[in-house]
């Protein structure tokens, strides 16, 4: 089984601040492996454990993203492909997915491609599906679990708003993963970290992937960000204190006043 996981390094957004123009303040923010991608990787490693094979990881990102890639290797991935080139500067999701799809084909073929469902910074959820569309292979998003792989097909459990659906796809296929609630992320072990140093780390440039160069970077990016703003701050709710039944009565009165209930 040849498996590839697409990953991204993102700013740690657990405690983000915005400046007055609504732009995220990046200074002081740590960079981390996108948690959706880590889940995808852990799912890929579980599949390798069950069916054997090799798991590679791939990112299209500036050099600093190497830390996130090293973490993937430390967690157990076998090989890393890091595509980094000025030519990809200013890429939107379309240009990124185009370049990635070329690199996937160049380094493949793979049986399964894993991706995080979305990245915690952009939150578009585009990359996985777009890579698959460029490659014309089946794909499913919101995958919480790969159920089985047999007879050249993969069955995945995908999250819906009100339940799940089981989807069977022909391989090769792409699955965009989302961690189930309370998923326990692994930490790289000491020996994993040491072994990571000696695993193949392959740098790739724009010239290393064949394709239509006009679709790379800013030129290949139809998306224009017009304005960014944080969602308006919600006012603090009103708190009713005191005796329990008295507070409930007050809340009901208040809601009636506001015509929320009759």
């Amino acid at each position: 089984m040849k498996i590839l996981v697409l990953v991204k390094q993102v700013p740690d957004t657990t405690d983000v601040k915005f400046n007055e123009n609504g732009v995220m303040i990046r200074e002081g923010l740590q960079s981390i492996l996108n948690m959706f991608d880590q889940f995808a990787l852990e799912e890929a490693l579980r599949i390798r454990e069950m069916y054997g094979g090799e798991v590679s990881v791939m990112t299209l990102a500036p050099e600093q993203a190497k830390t996130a890639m090293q973490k993937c290797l430390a967690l157990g991935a076998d090989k890393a492909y890091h595509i980094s080139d000025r030519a990809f500067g200013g890429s939107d999701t379309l240009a990124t997915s185009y370049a990635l799809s070329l690199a996937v084909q160049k380094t493949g073929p793979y049986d399964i491609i894993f991706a995080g469902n979305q990245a915690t910074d952009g939150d578009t959820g585009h990359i996985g599906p777009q890579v698959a569309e460029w490659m014309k292979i089946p794909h499913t998003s919101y995958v919480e679990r790969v159920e089985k792989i047999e007879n050249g097909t993969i069955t995945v459990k995908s999250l819906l708003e009100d339940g799940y659906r089981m989807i069977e796809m022909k391989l090769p296929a792409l699955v965009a993963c989302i961690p189930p609630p309370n998923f326990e992320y692994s930490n790289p072990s000491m020996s994993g970290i040491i072994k990571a140093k000696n695993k193949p780390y392959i740098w790739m440039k724009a010239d290393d992937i064949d394709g239509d160069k006009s679709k790379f970077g800013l030129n290949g990016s139809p998306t224009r960000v017009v304005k960014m703003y944080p969602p308006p701050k919600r006012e603090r709710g009103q708190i009713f204190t005191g005796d329990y039944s008295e507070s409930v009565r007050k809340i009901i009165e208040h809601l009636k006043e506001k015509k929320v209930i009759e």
Partner: protein
Amino acid sequence: MVDFTFTEEQEMIRESVRDFARKKIEPIALKMEETHKIPDDVIEGMAEMGLIAPTVSSKYGGQDFDPVTAGIIAEELSRADPTGSIPVFYLVQASWGHVFNKYGTEEAKKEILPNVTKGKWFLGIATTESDAGSDVLGTKTTIQKVGDKYVVNGEKMYISGVREAYTRGGGHVTIAKQFPEKGAKGMTLFYLPLQSKGIIPQYVDDLGREGISTGGFTIDNVEIPSHYIIGQEGKGFYIVHEGYEYARGLIAVICAAAGLKSLERGENYLKQRKAFGMPLAKFEGLQFKLAEHYTKLSYLRWGAYNALWTYHQEILGKASRFEVSKAIAMSKMFAQEWACEAIDDVMQWQGAFGYTRECVDQVAWRAVRSFGWAEGAKEIMKVIVSRELLGKDYTAYK
């Protein structure tokens, strides 16, 4: 050139241990005050991560880690566990695992170390007796060769991890007199399994580090095989200092981390608590305390890493044992005091709450206070540094 940065790999180790400790240790840390036990799943998790005796060779399940890298792990464990129990569990095994790995026989290493690194057994150190602590030569426990075995008699006291080794398995690197007439050259170091026939444990009620036991044991005609001798007969007094020194360096890091973590809690409190219409953080009298403690503890932290680095240089053959002894003793000399002073002030800032059992900082204070004695009293650190400065001719005793 001086470069105070950690390697990429070390940073990754720090991040991974910090995240592990945040998820698995922080939530249970204070509970150990009542359970008097490190939860089994934490020990299992640590073993899986490779955090138990990582100083041991990978041949026996360790990680071949150098002292600085071992220090990084100690620091992160200390930040996460104010009771100090897990840091102690870690530092003792890391230090004495190193000694065992260096001087143990191949047979003993194969038999014992994998069980230690897997978290099944505990590996401790037993030199102190009720009548001899700093003065190791005052040891009364004896070891005698009888046929192809050795027989040990005596007692040890104030020993960390007695319950752990007695119930889980494992034992202690132990010192005893083999040739009493030879003084320092008559002491032998060996591995003493605590589940041996003839060992009777007892426990003391410590002020802190509640998750790991301190106790003692009587040793009544306990037989050990010859391959349990560590190093050579008569070399124990010299070898044992290599373990102490490893442990002291780790303790200095642990003290700095415990103090700095307490200051972080203190900073938050100073910003939130208001008095006289403004946050406490605005009072310079308190700010200056914060600045002073932070500065001292940062020096302590770097002093400790420098000492561990010197230890590593010695392993690489680039520094002498004397340089190590001095650097290590300097790092431990004020470690407990500076950390306790900082934590004491953080307790003070919290007003009356600081004097309650709910206040985390008093837990940290009780833990750190133990390092004024454990693995070598702070006064002895001054004895060592003076000896290194003035030369042996000026030591009052050998």
